[in-house]
């Protein structure tokens, strides 16, 4: 697993799962549609990515679909990293 994937996965688990939550989160686990992250709490994830990878993700691109899995999130970050 590459470093970025691990970093995002670790953040999602630490930030969104309660201590007694035994759900397993993998890179293709639906986060928003799966009810793990709601749109209200999604803002901290966006800010984490922007700070960590020094990118600006426009609100129009920070859609629930773009944040729905760790894989989607990596694609999103990479799109803006390359710009």
């Amino acid at each position, binding site marked *: 697993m590459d470093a970025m994937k691990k970093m995002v996965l670790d953040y999602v688990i630490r930030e*969104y799962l*309660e201590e007694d939550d035994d759900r397993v989160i993998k890179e293709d686990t639906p986060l928003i549609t*799966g*009810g793990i992250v709601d749109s*209200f709490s999604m803002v901290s994830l966006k*800010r984490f990515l922007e700070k960590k990878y020094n990118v600006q993700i426009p609100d129009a691109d920070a859609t629930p679909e773009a944040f729905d899995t760790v894989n989607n999130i990596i694609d999103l970050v990479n799109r803006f990293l390359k710009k």
Partner: protein
Amino acid sequence: MAYSIKAREKFQLDIKELRDAGLFKEERYIHAPQGAEIEVEYPSGASLKKVINMCANNYLGLSSHPEVVKAAQEGLIHHGYGMSSVRFICGTQDIHRQLENRLTEFLGTEDTLLFPSCMDANAGVFEATLTDQDVMIADRLVHASIVDGMRLCKAMQDTFKHSDMGHLEEKLQEHQDKRYRMIITDGVFSMDGDLARLDKIVELAEKYDALVFVDDSHASGFIGKTGRGTHEHCGVFGKIDVITTTLGKALGGASGGCVSGRTELVEMCRQRARPYLFSNAVAPVIISGALKVFDLIFKSTERRDKLEKNMLYWRQLLKDAGFDIKEGESPIVPVMLYNAKLAQDIARDLYDEGIYAVGFFFPVVPKGQARIRTQLSAAHEKHHLDKAIEAFIKVGRKYNIIGKNKKEIIEMYGM
């Protein structure tokens, strides 16, 4: 015609999708004043059924109290039906200010401003007091009206795990570069019935120089020894910077809400909060009824004490019967079922047995956390609760959930 057949069909499809997903909400028509026992027409057109109400926010049983009704009638005669104005043009009567002063005294704050509802208070308060130099840090289970209010505000948004003080502390540390930090929480959480740890929150706020905001809608009037709210219960009365609450639950149950707190923050709401500025003044009849509510609850804690007794009795009945409930100290008692269909089926069967209680499921509560939320009232008598538990046991046996824990219920019905 602008509303084309195509547009109509699209909306019809949206409504069908809601029905298919089990998210369609139907109203039940109540043919009586609010109370412990009500007559209900459900489904529409059905003959009336007398049921015990276990789902109202009528915590103190004041919604139809004769003295409150009489005060409202007198208010109607002496102060008229409507104000035909927003507050700051020609909508403020003497009684509006009287009620604000009583709320200030009751909540232990510095000043209070009435809003048409607590939903409106929450929609306006953040935008009126915070800017893009500030951060709002909210518990993840706060009420939807707070979420909406935060979205209308330019301050940075952040959240912490439900009642997780370690996570909140991390967030406060992370946002030390902001001008103001506002910690935002419900006093009593409406779906789980648990209380915010306000003593710890105030401690953290002092340590990290933050403001504290509490929506005490499900607490004002009955939580704490004299019913002042969650801050009284937690020993931090007078230390909360902003409290929003409603007159639509324990405090008469009609409508209206308020922002109460530090003088300057309330003044900023009076100057800038859009739901206050652009809504009519709360009707005199409601203000008059609410003033009587405060006369009653300042005079005696009898109703609040009866509610507590009912709450303890009902929690014990459910536990003794073997139901899986959320532990807590509030009159919101969720019976956990985890599966959405099971919650709906059990609510329907309870209704057939004469008990009116509602199933809640995603998106109102997290996925796999479906439940029936029961709510106690000072209007309930012991015989109401005894009848209710009989019905719960009968229906619980039918679905074989009595004595079963979370894992066992999920094994039988899934999440």
